[in-house]
Each structure stands twice: as structure tokens, then as C-alpha cells.
């Protein structure tokens, strides 16, 4: 098949306009050496031209005005304001933390289990205020309250966590291939049973990853991604 024809097919494919017969042709040219480079070019041109039309619709100045109204650039003032906000939260949390356990010292410690079917996603808020977004096909176990010295949950699948800060009670996620320990942070774990890899991506804060015997495997900083192969136990750390 000549280059011209491949080019035409690639353009058509990108625009979702291939007929059944052309689809067959398209699949046939897949392995021709030039195919990849042609397809890349077509994709790039498609994106650039679509962006060119779109960029004119972006209301940059209007949004800038909106943003400026909402932000402050007086560094000192914002610092004090922000600090007082945290101080207030800290004091309230501290007093609740002292008072509540006195009343509920025998609270239940039932383990809950959530299963997400394929095509289903969900969000949970745990008793400590931690937010958990569960991806499809995920099983997640957590206690109704975290009484012991650690906050332990179990995960099989993929979830994103926004962990409430608590220096004295580390938050641990147990998976088939390791334990992720954090104190207060946002991160994503992908550890499906039938996937060969487990991947942990950190969004903010700091996490440590240990194997099932408690041996430290990695310490992540924001935008680090840690991957471990379940069978070969090959590990890797990359920045994304």
C-alpha cells in the first residue's frame, strides 16, 4: 500500500470515519514500518489544529480577573491568616480528641468491607476524616473506628487516599505486595490482584513503602511513582 493511502486511512481513523472494509485495511497496515511515524504525524496535526480552533474560545482575561479577585499577594498577612486557621483547627481537634474518647472508650471495632464492581466507582470518608476514592474492581476493608495505635486498612485494587494528618497514628494500607505507611498526605495506589505490578503515586506529603515483612522499600516525595512487580519483586522509582 502506498504512503498516500496509509495517510488517508490514519486521518480517517482519527476522525472515526473508517468503513468496515477500511478497518480491515487499517489493521493490515499496522505493522508496516512507516505506519507508526505517519500515524504520529497525523495525530499531532489533529491535536494542533483542534487546539488552534479551541484556543480562541478560551476566556483568558475574564478568568484572570476572577482569579485576581480571589487571591492575595501580601505574603505576611496570608501567613498569619493561614496560621491562625490551622491553630484553630488544631485546638478544636485536640479538644475533641480528648473529650470524645472519654465518652466512647468502648466504641465498636467492626471491620467493614466494600466491593466495587467493574464499571463502578465510589468514595468513602473514614472515621478519622480520611477520604478514599475507590476505582472499579476494588475491594477495600476498614474498621468503623481506629482504636489501636495504627490506622490500618486493606486494599485490593486501586484507590486514591487523602489522609487526615495524625503524627501519632500512622495510616497503613496493606496490599498483597506491601504496606504503604503515611501520616497525612494524598496518594494513589494501584494494586489489582491480577495485575503484575503494584504502583504507588504520591501527590502531596510523604509516604514510606514497606514489604510484607516490614522492610523499608522506598520513601516517596510528591510526584514520585513507585512500582513493584509482584512476582519478580523488581522495584522502580520514577518521577512523573
Amino acid at each position: 500500500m502506498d504512503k498516500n493511502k496509509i495517510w488517508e486511512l490514519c486521518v480517517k481513523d482519527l476522525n472515526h470515519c473508517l468503513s468496515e472494509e477500511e478497518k480491515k485495511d487499517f489493521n493490515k497496515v499496522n505493522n508496516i514500518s512507516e505506519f507508526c511515524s505517519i500515524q504520529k504525524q497525523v495525530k499531532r496535526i489533529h491535536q494542533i489544529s483542534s487546539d488552534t480552533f479551541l484556543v480562541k474560545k478560551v476566556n483568558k482575561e475574564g478568568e484572570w480577573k476572577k482569579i485576581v479577585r480571589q487571591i492575595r499577594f501580601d505574603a505576611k498577612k496570608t501567613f498569619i491568616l493561614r496560621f491562625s486557621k490551622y491553630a484553630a483547627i488544631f485546638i478544636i481537634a485536640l479538644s475533641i480528641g480528648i473529650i470524645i474518647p472519654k465518652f466512647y472508650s468502648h466504641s465498636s471495632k467492626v471491620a467493614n468491607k466494600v466491593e466495587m464492581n467493574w464499571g463502578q466507582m465510589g468514595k468513602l470518608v473514614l472515621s478519622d476524616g480520611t477520604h478514599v476514592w475507590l476505582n472499579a474492581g476494588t475491594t477495600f476493608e476498614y474498621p468503623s473506628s481506629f482504636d489501636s495505635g495504627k490506622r490500618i486498612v486493606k486494599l485490593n485494587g486501586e484507590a486514591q487516599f487523602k489522609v487526615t494528618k495524625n503524627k501519632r497514628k500512622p495510616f497503613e494500607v496493606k496490599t498483597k505486595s506491601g504496606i504503604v505507611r503515611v501520616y497525612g498526605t494524598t496518594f494513589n495506589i494501584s494494586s489489582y490482584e491480577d495485575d503484575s505490578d503494584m504502583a504507588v503515586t504520591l501527590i502531596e506529603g510523604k509516604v514510606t513503602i514497606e514489604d510484607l515483612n516490614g522492610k523499608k522499600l522506598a520513601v516517596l516525595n510528591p510526584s514520585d511513582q513507585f512500582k513493584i512487580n509482584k512476582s519478580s519483586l523488581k522495584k522502580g522509582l520514577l518521577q512523573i
Partner: protein
Amino acid sequence: MSLLKKIMDDTSWNKMKSGDKQAFRLIFDEYYSPLCLYANSFINDLDTAEDIVSDFFIKICEKRESIEIKFSVKQYFLFSVKNSVYSYLRSAANKITDIEPILKKIDNTPLEEYDLEKEEVLLQVDKLIEKLPEQRRKILKLSVFERKTYIEISEILGISVNTVNTQISRAYKFLRDNLDDYHLFLLFMYKKSK
């Protein structure tokens, strides 16, 4: 991304961190529109994309003192906006019901492979598109921007599907040849090396 660009970004970022509003504006000018297009490439809803990116700019401004950028401003921005898109899809505000294909697309688009086109570059491309014969330009716009199928376009303009096919294919080729002349797009380098 060139090293120079990275150094310029880092400088603006550090200035902004220490409270320089002018530097914030520079960063905004550079990244606002491209990031909107990036978010839009997943959700295909420009208004929402703009909201997401505006919220992101407010957030980085509020938290600027505590944000440590490891590698580059661009990567940090892409990564954050990508996460905001994730959060949006999982939030109650999301109006898209079938998010699976979008999540798949996000996962299959590695950050390093996404090219953020600068606004000036796109304006140059716009001038190039203006040079196309009127009919061809119209067809390109209907296809790329309004996402009409070849059949729909042929009905709108009263021409054959075959003509639409040829015209679009030619428009793409015209862009390829001329973008190359502009030396704007590193992608086409390997074509020369062959």
C-alpha cells in the same frame, strides 16, 4: 522542553513564591490556555476545563510557599491538572456518566508525551489554516473542531464523501509540510533523518 525555558519558568516561579504578582501573571499567560486545552482533551468540555484550571491557579497561589517543585514547572502543572481532572470526574459536579474511557485515556497519556503548545504557536498555526482554500478550511473546521463525520460534512456542504475525504487528507498534508517549514515541531525531525 528547552533548558532555557525551564530556567525561565523556575525564575518566574521563585519570584512568584516570594510574592511577585507580575511573575504570577507571566506564569498564567504562559500556561493558562495550554492547560485548559490539556484538561479539555480529556473531558471535552471547555467551560469545565477552564474552571478546573482557574481553581488550580488559585490553589498554587494560595499554597505557593509550601509547594516544592522537583523537576519542572511544566511537569508539575500537568501532573496537578491531571489530578484535578481525576478529582472532577469522581466528584458530584461531574456530569459525564461514562468516565471509564476517559480514565483510560488519562492513564494512557504519559505526561512526557503530551506537548503543551504555546499560545503564540497556535496563533501561528491559525494563520496557516487561514491560507487553506476556503472550502478545505471549512471542511477541516467541521471535522476537527465540530467533530462532524465525513458523511455529516458531505450533507452539510452538499458534496460527496469522497471529496470530503480528499480535502481533509490534503489539509492535513498542507499543515504537515508547512509546520515543518516553521521549524516549530520537533516531531518532524525524524522524517528528515530518514
